[in-house]
């Protein structure tokens, strides 16, 4: 719950509900990046209005909210849209940050907050939807490490030309658009944040692109760059011992994933 803090650290809140199961490591990542972190159950958020106001970063962590029954992230997306949409819109209008990781990305997509907030109203009615996250081409849940290359400098969470190594762990992460034009539009507006690439940084097929996403899209942001959604798990590569080959390649100073959280914290420190 939100209580007054006497330090002036940027404040992040991680949303918790039945089946969010990456809160622990996400909290660790944010705290290591310098944020002050609380966990909040969706029931509290729904019950008490205005709980988000003291926070600067709203985090939808990975997991299987409500079992991913019906479709991944769909039920939580529906709940947030129906019950706390105004509060989230205010949060966005205040210039604050939202990040959805894996299941959190699925939630943002399915509630229409990504790829474009402006499209939210139209995308509310399911049949107007132009983007989604569908079943992996392999039709399997897969846990594997992937290379990501930043595809624009639009997102405040991401450094220019960043190249990172992080794991994916999902069954429904294939980014799908109504048609190729939609992908190109997204690309032009700089909203494609991450693409899956091979170890040399080139666009490539399975397993480098682990789910068959069109345009190798691994993560997208809204037009302001303040809302990020990504399938891979940056919070699982914070410490060097999390790297799958550290026993070969040696221990680095820190994991690649920390940059995302640090950029968010630094942005808030500058902006607020």
């Amino acid at each position, binding site marked *: 719950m939100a209580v007054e803090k006497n330090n002036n650290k940027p404040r992040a809140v991680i949303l*918790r509900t*039945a*089946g969010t*199961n*990456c809160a*622990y*490591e996400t909290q*660790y990542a944010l705290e290591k990046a310098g944020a002050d972190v609380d966990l909040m*159950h969706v*029931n509290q958020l729904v019950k008490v209005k205005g709980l988000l106001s003291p926070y600067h970063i709203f985090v939808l962590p*990975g*997991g*299987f909210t*409500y*079992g*991913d*029954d*019906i*479709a991944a992230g*769909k*039920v939580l997306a*529906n*709940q947030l*849209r*129906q*019950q706390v949409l105004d509060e989230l819109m205010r949060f966005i209008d205040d210039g604050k940050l939202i990040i959805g990781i894996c299941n959190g990305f699925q939630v943002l997509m*399915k509630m229409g907050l990504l790829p474009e907030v402006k499209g939210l109203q139209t995308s*509310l*009615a*399911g*049949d107007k*939807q*132009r*983007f*989604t996250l*569908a*079943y*992996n*081409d392999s*039709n*399997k*849940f*897969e*846990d*594997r490490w992937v290379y990501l290359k930043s595809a624009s400098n639009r997102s405040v969470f991401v450094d220019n030309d960043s190249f990172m190594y992080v794991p994916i*762990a999902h069954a429904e992460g294939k980014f*799908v*658009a*109504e048609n190729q034009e939609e992908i190109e539009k997204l690309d032009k507006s700089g909203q494609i944040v991450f693409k899956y690439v091979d170890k040399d940084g080139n666009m490539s097929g399975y397993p480098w692109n682990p789910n068959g996403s069109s345009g190798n899209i691994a993560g997208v942001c809204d037009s302001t760059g303040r809302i990020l959604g990504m399938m891979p*798990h940056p*919070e*699982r590569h*914070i*410490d060097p*011992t*999390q790297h*799958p*080959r550290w*026993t*070969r390649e040696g221990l680095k100073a820190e994991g690649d994933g920390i940059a995302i959280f640090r950029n968010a914290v630094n942005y808030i420190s500058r902006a607020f």
Partner: protein
Amino acid sequence: MEIRIEVFIKENFPDVIGNETASEVSHIGIASVDEIRMVQVYLIEGDLSEDGIKRICGELLVDGLTQDYICIYGPSGQPDGIQAGKIELGKKWQYNSVHTIEVTRKRGVMDPVESTVLKGIKDLGLSAGSVKTAKRFLVAGQLTTDQLETIANKVLANKIIEDVFIDKDNLFYEGKNEIVDYAFHRQELDILDADDEQLLAISESGQMYLTVQEMKAVRKYFTALGRKPTDVELETVAQTWSEHCMHKTFKGIIDYNGEHIDNLLANTVMKATSELDKPWCVSVFKDNAGIIEFDEDYNICFKVETHNHPSAIEPYGGANTGIGGVIRDTLGTGLGAKPILNTDVFCFGPLDMPQEKIPEGVLHPKRIFKGVVSGVRDYGNRMGIPTANGAIFFDERYTGNPLVYCGNVGLIAKDKCEKESHKGDLILLVGGRTGRDGIHGATFSSVELTHQSEVVSGGAVQIGDPIMERKVTDALLIALDRGLYNNITDCGAGGLSSAVGEMGEKLGAVVDLEKVPLKYDGLSYSEIWISEAQERMVLSVPPKNMDEIRAVFEGEDVTATFIGEFTGDKRLHLRYKGETVADIEMVFLHDGVPRTTRKATWHLPSHEEPDIKEKMDYGEDLKRILSSWNVCSKEWVIRQYDHEVQGGSVLKPLVGVNNDGPGDACKVRPVLGSNKGVIVSNGMNPKYGDIDPYHMASSAIDEALRQVISVGGSLEEVALLDNFSWGNTGKPECLGGLVRASRGCYDTALYYGTPFISGKDSLNNEFKAGDRTIAIPPTLLISAICVMPDVTRAISMDVKSPGNLIYVIGITKNELGGSHYYYTHGFIGNSVPKVDIEIAKRTMDLLANATGKGLIRSCHDCSEGGIAVTAAEMSFAGGYGMELDLAQVPVEEGIVRDDIVLFSESNTRFVVEVEQPQQSEFEAAIKGISYGCIGKVIENDMFNVLSLSGEKVISEKISDLKEAWQATLKL
């Protein structure tokens, strides 16, 4: 009003589930299928407007981009102006014939999706009465009714839990909503004047599987009371006295070749622990799991369970309730621990077994395999617990009776390890609602399977609800933190009967059964009492905390109900709406079981000694072993498990330059920010048990410990778990093997200084097919857990760089008995690997010491396939070749054959990689144990081995070796 909503993938998007199904159908040899598409069906009952229905479809059930849908209205009519639609599948579906197979869960079988959809509808501000789901498969192609039946039964459905409808449209499953009222009627059983035969008949007809002696003890007790027992009293006794709950064989009296053994467990496995008396053992053999020390703030608990019989009948549900059950063991250890790691070990029949060899009433091993893997995947992943360690073993004798071992490691606060109910504490039941599911699971798991099992014991099979367990976990950890309860245990086998019976053993308890929240009406008081419905825990709560603890659970949307009280009168008292239905003494329940003497004998079997011709080249033999079911890559399985959630992963199950080599053991940091870690490994080799269970046991312990050492651990703080899966121990030979194995455990654990902290046994693993009985091979799983002070000292098995030296540590003996080399030649042999207690422990200690000093770049233990397989795996995992010389391998006197040196499976051996500059320091560090520098890592991709006489005996591309290793298990 009822609405049937059919959701399907649009024409221009791939239907991955449909395509996958089609390929599985072709695998069972039905070629005439052109295409299969999957349609998700929701049946919603409730008063909804047209607009409401459109919102439910458009905003909740359907993905507007990739999916389309139609609504069909039930017999009771539809709102004006909506027409029942028809699926538009476009040109593609202009086949001559499209059949449909619709599959839906039977009434009362858990389907978590139903409650999720209801929640979603509620969030939309609408309300519906009930939801049912189904999967409808559109099968295009010329197919006979028989073929459709085959597809339904072999690929799409399991009739134990599901109903199947072929070529039927617009189904509404009439009668689904009828309410069956339960009219209370106190049932008494007439056993007071029953003779032995009648006693047995009563026991069997009630599926209680109590023996005559046991039934006599019950009769004696109630005769003394001067009244007949009620059905629920007898059920409670049956549950409590079942082999599954009481371990009557292990704790009973055994006559072993004339030698009197009173309590085998206490005299072997547990004895080693008490004699070792390690200060870091916090709680052993008394709680749900064993507990050892971890750091200043936390301890670690570890438990492995078997869930064999349910998995044979319904693999998905069996495995998923298996993992769910062992996670609840962790939640119910001490006052509650946080689950941090899953480990899973399976035994199946070979996946390529021809259908005609499959006994009646048995699922094909491939079906069981896929079901079990997805069961573990869906539960473990949804719970957010990494599944980072495991093994799979194949043998034809597991076909009718597969084995499923599920384990869980927990992190528990140091001050939460002890628990005790107090007189006057209230009994709180939390979690899932109670239904008819899993009735008689405890007794069922204590008898042999037959082709009738699915009919008789279908009720014992359940499907889990991982999200419910996740919610229970979240709420529990909050209540634990606030210290709101005095005691806790999980509802496992035996349901409330075992849970309350156990917690109330010292105090006594009274329970009002009508208070238990039900999934549906119609359950009798005994069904409520013995139901094994999943995701339930029982807590002992001081009255003052009533409201606070209920609020905690309700805050997480978990039902929490007070159902009774711990009384202090040492009786078990059950009531239904005020009427007493059971009233017996706890002491009779827990100590009243008659102890019988079981006969055990054992003789060393003599198998044919193979006479295999020596060869000039063993490349093919190496590839054959690498591609064998037990040795081959399990990547297909491992990748489907989330092995990194919680962020603690330090060594993953797959390692090496391409993240696909076979890691020896997994390592995690339970507390992020600290470098203190936990290593988990396992050892098992039933093939040795065919020769001598004693040496199977000591070899399994040796293997588990070798893996700990291989990743950089030491024997300083290693605890073991024993999990015995045996055949019918009513047969003296079979029980004799159990005695041998237990003694192997005792001697070897004592020798290595590694105490057992918990364990489990599953007996009567036999399958009766017609007149023949197939027993599983005696199977002992040893799990090891090691606390590692600094995980950054870890090493992995993949070779690191060219020029580094390759050593073999430990002596190679002529021990090919039970080896994979013999196995691939169709033999067992007799020379089973033994543990050399002169040198084994010293070998591990010195090696651990060398690793601690950073002198070792990679290390891999020698198990199935011996030095050849071990070195080859290190080589292709690291992506570099090797040049090796067998003449440098330390061997016992008189070994002159290359195949023995290459493939013998002698214990306590390692292949290690050392950098040249550290050669002398390394050799100094391991002075006093046998070692040989047998070659080096090379730049190119050749795996070359010279024979004892200096000839090239293996020369293979590592890419070919890797391909052989990976090709087997690609499904």
